[in-house]
């Protein structure tokens, strides 16, 4: 197990290449918070239960290797705005080796 590299585009449009550990039971929302790429209180409000939509993001690349959306995730996306085909809740995406090279853009604050 080792770190993978992800590209995260923040809400201002700036791209950050960051390391994400695959062996710490982390999800994408937590990686964004770990690197402080979105202000505290504007992302991961529910803590990662798919019960708010504050970690809404767009998957620009590698969308196909992601796990399918659960019923809960699809439901919560109803409370987000500017939802696109590639919209996901980043808290529902566990960090695995398959995600190496993933590019993701954080959606605007609702």
């Amino acid at each position, binding site marked *: 197990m080792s770190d993978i590299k992800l590209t995260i585009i923040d809400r201002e449009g700036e791209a950050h290449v960051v390391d994400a550990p695959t062996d710490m039971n982390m999800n994408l929302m937590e990686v964004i918070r770990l690197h402080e790429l979105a*202000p*505290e*209180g*504007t992302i991961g*409000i*529910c803590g990662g*239960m798919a*019960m*708010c*939509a*504050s970690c809404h993001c767009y998957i620009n690349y590698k969308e196909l290797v992601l796990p399918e959306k659960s019923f809960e995730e*699809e*439901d919560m*996306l*109803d*409370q987000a*705005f*500017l*939802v696109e085909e590639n919209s996901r809740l980043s808290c529902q995406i566990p960090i695995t080796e398959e995600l190496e090279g993933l590019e993701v853009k954080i959606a*605007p604050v*609702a």
Partner: protein
Amino acid sequence: MIKTDILIIGAGPTGLFAVFEAGLLKLKCHLIDALPQPGGQCSEIYPKKPIYDIPGFPEILAGDLTTNLMEQIKPFSPGFTLGERAETIEKLEDDSFVVTTNKGTKHNAPVVVIAGGLGSFEPRKPPISNIADFEDKGVNYFIKEPEFFRNKKVVIAGGGDSALDWSIFLADVASEVSLVHRRNEFRGALDSVEKVSELSKIGKINLITEAEVVGLNGSNQLESVLIKKKNSEEEIKETDYFLPLFGLSPKLGPIADWGLEIEKNAIKVDNSYDYQTNIPGIYAIGDVNTYPGKLKLILCGFHEAAIMCQSAYQRIFPDKKYVMKYTTVGGVHGFDGSVKEAKKEVVKSIN
């Protein structure tokens, strides 16, 4: 004017437990919360979710934790101002504070404790550039008085329970109800979904799915909405009201303008001593505060509440010395006259 010893802003788990700790020191509390019910996130976001790290509870539902806290603080008869948001704070000559809500309710206390979590829950507003111009001029995020919509045309947006329930209710009140939703599927309770489908078939609800409201038009009052469908088709729909019902999200809100030191969307406090902010007499506890090593956990909020109360006591009674007593020893003497005490051992001597 509501007068109390400790005015607590935020009725989540930390705010509620602060009432208990204050009560042991014979200090009365009053709580303000923007939500209509106590419990904060625990009751608003995840009441049916289990929590596993409350000491002494291997597993407890967030909603049950709220119920238990309310039971625990009952002897100390806290006051509540619910459904109102703390808006302004003002310091009086006697060093006490007056906090006024958005509805004008005034509260006076020598100590103010902010236990506001991530802030007050506000409706999520769709990103339509001119939506603010039509607020209360055809755009409403809450439905207070359904009669208001009698014989009016209403467009509701959203796919959750409240969008479904209000569509059903207003179908009999309004002259026309349209429900606009991003998907074909709805998230609500099964019978609400079925009812909407039924009403749609008989033409009582105009269901517009795989669509989004993207524009608002009107000179002063709302006159129509622009609906964009998935296939890029656009439709202008005449309406008297647009009701976006997309749930609530917390915002730090007016508290951010109270002159408190803010860092990372949280209030800086002195964690080496009493969780006081940079303004003496104003404390911040629970998820709303920050300090080196802060953990946003309910159990940390409980600890901070207990420490804060000791300092608040000294501020209110500078000449008194309080000696901490275990509840097992001192019992719990409620302001309502109730007394909880450890049972005395029965002793009988043998002659």
